[in-house]
């Protein structure tokens, strides 16, 4: 049984700005021949074709520097492909996108609560309402106590969790996560794994997340895509044969360990090419 926490409650509490409220289900993404060559001449992504259905939960894996963050930025529209096209199943402008960067990137002059409330603020949600929701999101990532602190008074993992709360506080149709849990301890991480999956099951948004932890990829995602060394090409595109409802006990089942092994082997292959 997926846990259902206060974040979930907050998100379903309705009353979000109209631009966001129709985003309850996910958005599909199609990449055709996408390349990205940086001004320095470096090819970070090489002619990539990829179709992601609306409501998918996809993990991206690959060696450090292979182009995962670049790809996420391209999909979010924060960067433009040098070649190729990226299309969405419905108008991306109407759908809301949330992004957790690899680094927290909080606003140092705002307290934690105000940082987490930013997307709601930008969407025009009233002050009371957005404070309540931001507080709920902070509670969910275990930071209710730190709501009035400034980012510089937080630990590294806490900052990353604020950044996560900031992404989850809206009801995004497309959620892009760049190693959101890397700086977190095992327990916090497992708690958030469950939160995230429960949220996804409830709202059906599309989730694309980068992770380096094989077990996390297997536990969370429905589909895992493994990239080669830079420039990113797909080495493996693997649909995980695991039940929809997942609990921690699953981690020690042979089926789970087999999936982990599959991913590991794909990684090794990608490194070798």
């Amino acid at each position: 049984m997926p846990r259902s926490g206060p974040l979930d409650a907050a998100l379903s509490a309705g009353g979000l700005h109209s631009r966001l409220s129709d985003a309850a289900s996910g958005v599909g993404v199609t990449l055709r021949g996408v390349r990205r060559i940086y001004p320095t001449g470096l090819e970070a992504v090489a002619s990539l074709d990829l179709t992601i259905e609306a409501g998918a939960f996809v993990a991206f894996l690959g060696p450090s520097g292979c182009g995962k963050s670049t790809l996420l930025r391209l999909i979010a529209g924060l960067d433009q492909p040098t070649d190729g096209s990226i299309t969405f199943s419905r108008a991306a402008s109407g759908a809301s996108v949330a992004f957790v960067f690899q680094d927290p990137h909080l606003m140092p002059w705002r307290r934690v609560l105000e940082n987490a409330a930013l997307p709601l603020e930008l969407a025009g949600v009233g002050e009371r309402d957005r404070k309540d929701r931001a507080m709920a999101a902070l509670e969910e990532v275990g930071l209710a106590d730190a709501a009035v602190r400034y980012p510089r008074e937080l630990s590294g993992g806490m900052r990353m969790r604020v950044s996560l709360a900031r992404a989850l506080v809206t009801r995004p149709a497309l959620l892009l996560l760049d190693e959101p849990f890397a700086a977190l301890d095992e327990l916090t991480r497992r708690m958030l794994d469950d939160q995230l999956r429960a949220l996804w099951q409830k709202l059906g948004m599309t989730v694309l997340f980068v992770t380096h932890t094989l077990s996390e990829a297997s536990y969370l995602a429905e589909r895992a895509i493994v990239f080669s060394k830079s420039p990113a090409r797909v080495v493996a595109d693997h649909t995980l044969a695991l039940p929809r409802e997942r609990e921690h006990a699953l981690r020690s089942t042979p089926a789970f360990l087999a999936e982990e092994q599959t991913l590991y082997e794909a990684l090794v292959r990608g490194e070798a090419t």
Partner: protein
Amino acid sequence: MGAFLERALPPTLALGGFLAIWEVLTRALDVPAYLVPPPSAVLAAALQEPSTLLVGAMTTGRAALVGFAFSCAFGILAAITLATSRRLERAFYPYTVFLQTVPIVAIAPLLVLWFGPGLRAVAVSAFIVSVFPIIANTLAGLRSVDPALRDLFRLYGASRLATLVKLELPSAIPEIVTGLRVAAGLSVIGTIVGEFVAGFAEGAPGLGIVVLTSYRQLRTDVLFAAVLTAAGLGFTLFALVNAVGRLLLRRWHASELSR
């Protein structure tokens, strides 16, 4: 109390030391008083004509404040406008240097004709002299925003105004405060120069007039007293800016954290 002492003691000691050296030097080297009077003579002159300096400080201070306020408002607005596009910046930013290089005396006739003599022309002079550092610093600040935060705002479809108010301006505050620090002193000198050329309407003469007339009459003690009073106005504005800066940056910016 201890914190206040820690803050107030060093500048007080520095000032005391400086005045002492000045006094001793002028006496020891027998510097003619019409060239550099000892501080005691300056003080005596100031005490002899307290009202001249007081009235001067009031008049000059008011004009400097008005000019400074306009500089802040216009300088920040101009920088915001220039920051909206690289092309706009390239087209107009270089010409704002003009404000820095134009001698007030050369445009004094226009100032007086357009704004009328006295406070208004003088405040405009203060404005012209002090606005550029605010533009330059604010622009630099707006340009230095964390690109990832900019991306985030774009992602959430933030309007131009929201990006400005919630992202760009707050993160430019350290630079803006630096610009204001520079502008504080400049607005005082701009006022004084303005008074030199356009300053005397009926009544209360500003420090610029006191400087000029005492200069002409070689009342160097009064001259120094007036110049130091002007410096005092500059310090006051500067201290004001510092206080505001500390208030705004205390909790989050490296430049104010290790205090």
